[in-house]
């Protein structure tokens, strides 16, 4: 069973989004980190860059594969988790916590309605 955290938004490409006021924090789910295996590279997102919902923002790479991280929402990148860039293993260890990837200044909260809640996501990745 993969861990899913209540109160977060999820999308089919296995990213999660935590919303606090106008700021969204993006990470990958427990399912995604398990499928990737040992993560060894995280590309540093460009602060100030505007991304559209669904855009491939950065790549993440494990020994097994490289994958794109798609933004669950549109907005401007406002912060990057440099600790995860320098030590990507923390994404495996704590995907919903210390292993978050980047923050985004949300442009339009209406887009949240397209995302799944914890219950739907755990059904999806049962």
């Amino acid at each position, binding site marked *: 069973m993969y861990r899913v955290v209540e109160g977060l938004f999820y999308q089919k490409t296995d990213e999660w989004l935590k919303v606090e006021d106008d700021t969204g924090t993006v990470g990958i789910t427990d399912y995604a980190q398990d499928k990737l*295996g*040992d993560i*060894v*590279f995280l*590309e540093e997102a460009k602060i100030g860059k505007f991304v559209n919902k669904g855009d491939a923002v950065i*790549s993440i*790479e494990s*020994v*097994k594969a*490289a994958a794109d991280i798609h933004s669950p929402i549109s907005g401007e990148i406002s912060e990057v988790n440099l600790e995860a860039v320098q030590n990507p293993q923390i994404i*495996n260890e704590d995907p919903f916590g210390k292993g978050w990837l980047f923050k985004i200044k949300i442009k339009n909260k209406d887009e949240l309605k397209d995302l799944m809640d914890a219950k739907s996501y755990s059904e999806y990745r049962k």
Partner: protein
Amino acid sequence: MNQNLKKIPLFNLHEKLGAKFIEFANFLMPIYYTSIKDEHLAVRERVGIFDVSHMGEIKILGKDAKKFANYILTNNIEKTNFGDVKYSVMLNENGGIVDDLFSYTISDDEILLVVNASNIEKDYNHIKKYLWDGLNLTNESDKTVEFAVQGPKAQELLQNFTNFNLDKIKYFKFDYINIFDENMLISRTGYTGEDGFEIYMNKEIGEMVFNKILNKGKDYDIRVCGLGARDTLRFEVCYWLYGNDIDETINPIESGQKFLVDINKENFLGKDSLIKIISEGVKRKFVGIEVLGGIGRHGYKILDKNKNEIGFISSGNYSFVLNKSFSLGYVNLPHGEIGEEVIITDGKREFSGKIVKKPFLKPRVKKEE
């Protein structure tokens, strides 16, 4: 799932041990159990056990089997005796690499070849095609299991099971020893760059032996290791992987395996082509590349600083010991000087790289002085 997939003999045991499986060479093989990194470091620091029963075992039997092996392989098998293991390549008539393999000299009339899983049928047919009259060829792959016990604690672990002093088996030597009341072939060989042994036995006793080693191995914090760690371990010490780093379009001079070729042997398959290749000079070179920001994987292109294509990546991986990413690949000469800066691309992303010395990590095998 592919219906033609073969199950390795101990499939159920691996499933019970929590293995994640992938398709490899028509087998459903364990790729990892805990994590590739955890298993990799266990072998570098302590000990790991790999079930490598997918590997092929082909025997050449009959008068002058050794002489014939000396003809189809590039290394000098003629000079070997009971207990000698040789690493060789086997060439086609054009000098291309049909396979890379270990040969075990059991006697002048019996040679065991341990070949890559993906090449079992191809090798068998290739050898059959050139087989001398009076010799027999048998494919023992389906009835043989092979385990690799690798790491600095490998000998200490295995010594628990036998009175035979394992010190007597030197690097690239083998013997038959009695373990668990069964006779098995054991060699001080491997594919990890660590000291260790490879053990061959009939498949009927495989599970019993594997379990006994694993249980005792807990005293050494052993890990069961999958194909993932097998690949990252061999990669760190720059051992070639057939199908990635070498194949029939590549000759052993380009691949840096000239040391496996005894060019002074009277005759061997591919010799004429190889002499021609050597005299004309090769056009490309097998190099190691340190890569920044990602992994340069099999099939990615190598570009020079001006973005002209100069070669391709044959293997790429992350070194858990050096904490860096490296690739192996071929570049067109005169490229390939140590220190040369290159660009690695999958067509979408670009990584900068620098040609570095091989191996990335020095093997810690116990070579004889």
